């Protein structure tokens, strides 16, 4: 059960602990938690600048839609690629769907390995691929109305770093 798509929140500490529970060969668990930001709409429009968000575009809530069936397959495929590429003992991916509020957890990825290099690389790889390959879509609620979040070119660039032959990939 390495991949879950669910409405419910999750227990980060318990999930991380589960990856090394009862084992003595895990030396490293790298993990990531993604959360809903209130300033997301403004920030997306401005790129990654740090201009103060416009109140009219402040995110009051966010609804995550997904493609049931394909979502799990896409996440499983990403996890399988990570297993093929790094020496990892276990991977856990949780992605929430439905309506979420600022500060809520959206996504969780954790990777257990003997060594930190493999754990970090696989964890970041999974997040980068999830961002461009897994069929989730965010719709934000703002005072100015609802709007679907645009895909970011920076996410494509992040995923492309992992293509074979890219110098910037650490493994």
């Amino acid at each position: 059960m390495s991949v879950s798509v669910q409405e419910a929140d999750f227990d980060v500490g318990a999930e991380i602990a589960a990856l090394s529970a009862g084992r003595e060969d895990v030396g490293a668990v790298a993990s990531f938690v993604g959360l809903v930001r209130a300033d997301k709409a403004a920030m997306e429009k401005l790129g990654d600048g740090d201009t103060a968000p416009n109140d009219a575009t402040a995110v009051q809530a966010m609804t995550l839609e997904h493609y049931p069936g394909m979502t799990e397959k896409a996440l499983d495929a990403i996890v399988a690629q990570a297993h093929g590429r790094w020496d990892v003992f276990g991977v856990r991916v949780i992605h929430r769907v439905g309506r979420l509020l600022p500060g809520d957890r959206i996504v969780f990825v954790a990777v257990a390995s003997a060594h930190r290099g493999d754990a970090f690389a696989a964890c970041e790889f999974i997040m980068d691929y999830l961002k461009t390959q897994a069929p989730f879509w965010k719709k934000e609620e703002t005072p100015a109305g609802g709007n679907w979040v645009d895909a970011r070119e920076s996410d494509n660039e992040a995923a492309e770093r992992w293509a074979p032959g890219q110098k910037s990939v650490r493994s």
Partner: protein
Amino acid sequence: MNVNILFFASLREALGVSSESLALPANVVSTGDLRDHLAARGEPWSVLAATKNLRVAVNQQMVGLDAAIKAGDEVAFFPPVTGG
């Protein structure tokens, strides 16, 4: 031949429909053909031709707009993903 077509996110909203079953004309043999066939219906369907970086999946695998489709396939159109 029949295929089941799904639409997600902004496309689903723009079309006002999340799925349909369609009997394909003989000249529609690829995902690109199907996109063009649907877009030719006029508004709001032309959004399928207008969507930048339109994504398509056949049987829940992302493919290109040149991928073959066959009877019984599940074909999904959607905008670039924004999860995570």
